[in-house]
C-alpha cells in the first residue's frame, strides 16, 4: 500500500478493496460445494424411503431388528409383564424422563418401536440383557429398560423412536409418521 495518505480515495484504494472483496466472497463461495459435497447424496436419501413391516409373525417377548436408512430398528412385542414394568417405573427421576405412554402409540402398548442405536456413541445394544428387562450396550455399558429408556451408564438419552404409523392392526410403516411428513 502507498505510504502517502490522502483524503480523497484513489483508484488504487478502490482496486485494493474491490479485489479483496471479490477474493473473500469468491473464497467463501468456493467452500460451499467443497463442504456440501460431503452431505448425503441423492441416491442415499432416495434409499431412505419408508419401509413396511408385518408385525404378525413376531412372538410375545420377541425383539426383531429391521433396517431403515441403514439404521437398525428394534420392534419389541412386549409381554404384559414387560409393559407393567415399563409403566410402573418411577420415570420422573430418570435421566431422560418420559412415561411409557409417550413411547408407544396409544392403543398399541404391546409394540415398542425404537432406533436401535445407543445414544452414547452409536453401538447396537444387545436385547434381553442388563438389569432392566431391556437392552445392554456392550461398548460402554449403557442399560435401557423395557421402554427403551436410559437407566444406567454413560448414554444421555432414551433410545429414539423413529417416525412410524400403524397402517393396519398388525402392520406398521417406518419412516412415515402418518402426518404426511417423512
Amino acid at each position, binding site marked *: 500500500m502507498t505510504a502517502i495518505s490522502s483524503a480523497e480515495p484513489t483508484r488504487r484504494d478502490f482496486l485494493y478493496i474491490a479485489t479483496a472483496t471479490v477474493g473473500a466472497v469468491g473464497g467463501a463461495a468456493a467452500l460451499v460445494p467443497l*463442504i456440501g459435497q*460431503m*452431505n*448425503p*447424496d441423492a441416491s*442415499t436419501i432416495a434409499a*431412505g424411503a419408508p419401509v413396511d413391516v408385518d408385525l404378525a409373525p413376531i412372538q410375545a417377548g420377541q425383539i426383531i*431388528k429391521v*433396517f431403515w*436408512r*441403514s*439404521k*437398525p430398528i428394534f420392534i419389541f412385542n412386549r409381554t404384559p409383564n414387560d409393559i407393567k414394568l415399563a409403566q410402573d417405573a418411577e420415570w420422573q427421576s430418570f435421566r431422560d424422563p418420559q412415561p411409557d405412554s409417550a413411547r408407544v402409540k396409544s392403543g398399541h402398548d404391546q409394540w415398542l418401536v425404537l432406533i436401535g442405536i445407543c*445414544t*452414547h*456413541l*452409536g*453401538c*447396537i445394544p*444387545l436385547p434381553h440383557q442388563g438389569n432392566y428387562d431391556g437392552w445392554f*450396550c*456392550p*461398548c*460402554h*455399558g449403557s442399560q435401557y429398560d423395557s421402554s427403551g429408556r436410559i437407566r444406567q*451408564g*454413560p*448414554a*444421555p438419552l432414551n433410545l429414539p423412536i423413529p417416525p412410524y404409523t400403524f397402517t393396519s392392526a398388525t402392520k406398521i410403516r417406518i419412516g412415515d409418521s402418518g402426518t404426511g411428513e417423512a
Partner: protein
Amino acid sequence: MSGHATYQPQNGFMKWLERRLPIGGLVYSSFIAYPTPRNLNYWWTFGGILTFMLGVQIVTGIVLAMHYTPHVDYAFNSVEGIMRDVPFGWLLRYVHANGAAFFFAAVYMHMARGMYYGSYKEPREVLWILGVILFLLMVATGFMGYVLPWGQMSFWAATVITNLFSAIPLVGDPIVSWLWGGFAVGDPTLNRFFSLHYLLPFVIAGVVVLHIWALHVVGQNNPTGVDAKDEKDTVAFTPYATVKDAFFVSLFCIVYAWFVFFIPNYLGHSDNYIMANPGQTPNHIVPEWYYLPFYAILRAIPNKLAGVCALGGAIVVLAFLPWLDTSRVRSANYRPLYRQFLYIFFAAVVGLGYLGSQEPTGGYVIAARLLTIYYFGFFFVILPLLGLLETTKPLPNSISESILSKSAAASSPSGAKV
C-alpha cells in the same frame, strides 16, 4: 542458516547448481555441520526413528493403495486379496499395519523424552506445539487407516469415533451426518476416509518440515537442559548424530521386524478378520492399543459431552504444557519432585491403557476415574504448583562441565568415551 557460508561445493555440477538452487548448502548446514549437543542420549534418536517410520508408512501405503478397493462390498475382500494373491502383499500389509503401532510407540517415547527433559520450555514452545499437531494428525490418520479393511472393528470404530461429534449441542447430528455422507457409516464414509488417509501423511510430512525448521532455529535441548554455550558443548550432526540415529533405527527395526515376521497379528483384533456387519456390534469393542489411554478417559466419565471433552482435552492440554509448567529448570534430572510425579504420570497413562482394554464395569471404572483425575491433576494442579514450591538441584554451568565432572567421577573407562 549460518552454516551456508562454510559449504564449499566440490565438483563443477554442484558449483553450477549452488548458484541457482543452494540446496547443497542447506543440507550441509542442516544435517552435516549442524551443531548438536555432545551429551545427547539414545532418547534423542526417536526423532530420526519417527522420520524413518513416516517414510515406511508412505512407501508401503502407496503400494497397498494400488491393490485396495474403497467400496463396502470389495474393501474387505481386496485386503484379503492383498494377503493371499498379491506378490509380497502379506509382507507389505503387515509392515504397514505393524508400522502404525511402531510409529505410535516411537512417538510416545519421543513425547515422554520431551516431558522428562523439559524440551517444551522457552524457547521451544512452537516446536512443541507443532509436535502436538503432528500427534493429532497421526491419531486422525491412524484411525482412518484402521477403518479401511472394513472388518467389524473397523466399522464399529468408525461408528463410535464419528459419534463423538454428536455430543456437540445443536449442530452435533447434522455434523455426524455430514461426516458419514449418509444416515450411518457406509460407502461414502469409507471413500472419504480412504481419500483423507492418503492425504494426511503428506500433511504430516509438511508439518515435520516445520517441526525440524523450528528445531534448527532454537537448537536441540539436551539431558542437562542447559543451553549449549560454545563449541566445546557441541559436535557436528554428521557423523555423530547421524550414525547414532542410524544405529538405533537398526535396533528398533529388529523389534519391528520380529513383530512383522513372527507375531504380525499380536497387536490386532481377531474381530477385524470378520467383514463389517452394520447389524451386529462386537461384544467387546476396543481401539488399537495406542488409543487405549484416551479411550479409558472417555469411558471413565459418566456424561457423554463431558467424556468427549475430556478425551479431546487430554491431548489438547499437551499444547499448553509450556505454560502450565511454571518451573524454569528444564531437565527432570535436576527436579527431584517433578521426576517422582512424572513417573507416576507415566504409570497412570499405562494404567489407563490397561483399563481401556477391559470391560467398562465396577472396579475398572473407579480405577479409570482415579487415574483420569491424576492425569488432569498433573497438568492443572501439580505442574503449576511444583514450579513455585520445588527446590531444584544446582545446574551445571555448561554441557561440557557436566560431562567432565561425570567422567572424573566415573571409575569405568566408559565415562571417558566423549
